[in-house]
């Protein structure tokens, strides 16, 4: 069996507590995702020094949508195609809204729900499984 590898290098760290990897400006503290190598995006800052930072693993749902048609390439869709949900999530600490696929059933999802980061297999090709970050709804009121 081939080991899983990330579908993109350097954008997230897998593991028990996976996290997205952003950049934070050494000078003004502005965050940016996806990570980028060049200057700080804040127009009032001239810094070119950005450091890797693990972004908040939790956030709230800004919006979501389920796609019922197979997208064109380069998306690698399962055969047969299955609808999938994309969530826009407001991270709890960085003032960023980040997209990701939903891990779970969208039927109960609402704007404002709490979610946390997880990972899963995006597709499998000749080199084996490729993983990606996903968002998973956090059960707020567990039955006691």
């Amino acid at each position, binding site marked *: 069996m081939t080991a899983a590898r990330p579908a993109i290098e350097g954008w997230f760290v897998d593991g028990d507590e996976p996290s997205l990897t952003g950049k934070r400006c050494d000078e003004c503290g502005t965050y940016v995702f996806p990570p980028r190598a060049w200057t700080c995006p*804040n127009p009032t800052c001239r810094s070119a020094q950005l450091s890797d930072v693990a972004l908040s693993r939790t956030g709230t749902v800004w919006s979501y949508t389920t796609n019922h048609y197979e997208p064109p390439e380069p998306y690698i869709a399962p055969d047969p195609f299955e609808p999938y949900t994309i969530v826009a999530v407001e991270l709890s600490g960085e*003032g960023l809204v980040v997209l990701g696929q939903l891990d779970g059933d969208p039927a109960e999802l609402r704007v404002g729900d709490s979610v946390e980061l997880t990972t899963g297999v995006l597709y499998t090709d000749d080199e084996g499984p490729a993983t990606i970050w996903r968002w998973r709804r956090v059960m707020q009121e567990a039955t006691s």
Partner: protein
Amino acid sequence: VSSVIVAGIGMHPWGKWGRNFVEYGVDAARKALDDAGIAWTDVQFVSGADTVRNGYPGYVAGATFAQALGWTGAKVASSYAACASGATAIDVARMRILAGACDVALVVGADTTPKGFLAPTGGDRPDDPDWLRFRLLGATNTTYFGLYARRRMDLYGATELDFAKVKVKNSEAGQHNPNARYPKAFTVEQVLESPMVSDPLRLLNICATSDGGAAVVLVSEDYAKQHDVPTTVKVAAVSTVTPTYPNTVIEMPNFATDSAAVAGLPERPFRDDIAHAAYEEAGLGPEDLSLAEVYDLSSALELDWYENIGLCPPGEAEKLLNDGDTNLGGRIPVNPSGGLGAFGEAVPAQAIAQVCEVTWQLRGHAGARQVEGARVGLTANQGLFGHGSSVILTT
């Protein structure tokens, strides 16, 4: 400051004709020149709006159209700004006129589109966000429209019925438009029974991709007076603004918004800025509008635009729609052309087509689509990667 005059307008009908885009552009250009009563050989500047789906001729659209019409030695420029390309090409032309560098300019945009979803440029392109959003997320264009629509539902109580009513409203106006690809009235039931694409948006809520061409002839006020060109319709403003950091609304083709953690929230969201800059330049406000043509890539997005262009406060677009205010015959008709719902999108031609419609309206030549007593019209649109597009025309 002297004005720039819309001397002529022309369109090749929208459809899925499958022919060379140059043919549509030339047809639209000839119609616009005839409409202006100006010979091609008198055009001093050609401003092309590019298409990126038709190979090299599309990247140099201005020269492509000039060659097709016959070389005259006219100066040329070609602009690409995604959906905003047409407005950018108009702005380039009117700025040359305002600078006194020319008196007669021809602006042309045309496209031939493939079937199905618009897809990114091919190949293996892992440093291109437009490629990566498909690869890593399956984030099609309609995904972003679905996100905006769902947010309206959960935040403001919008319903699928509201979205359907936008489509029905636009189709009722668009059925009278000879240039529309779908000149037919749809019913609420037809919309609600169409297949789900990006929940909550159904097929009939989403604009198709179309072939089409549109052109305008712009002239200086002096030229118009010297050559008896009617000065009925004037360009009062063209807004081609970019976002102001931080842009806090998730936008195509991005994976994330800018961060508001350090910079704080912007004074206005980007789409509000687009119209705001146009109003500022024209010295007008939303209360002055007779009509608006906005970019209904989805019928839900039209409701966002009502708020972005200041027709109502956030959260009240559904009320404006349901009160009939934006219907033909209402207080402030929106998309009397039928909008993208009736046309489908021919990217580089669409912002020019919006200007054609407002011009017909301000001349009183819109036939069964006519907005009574139209004096001021605004177009609004937004191009991928941060291109604003808004034009205000006045009588």
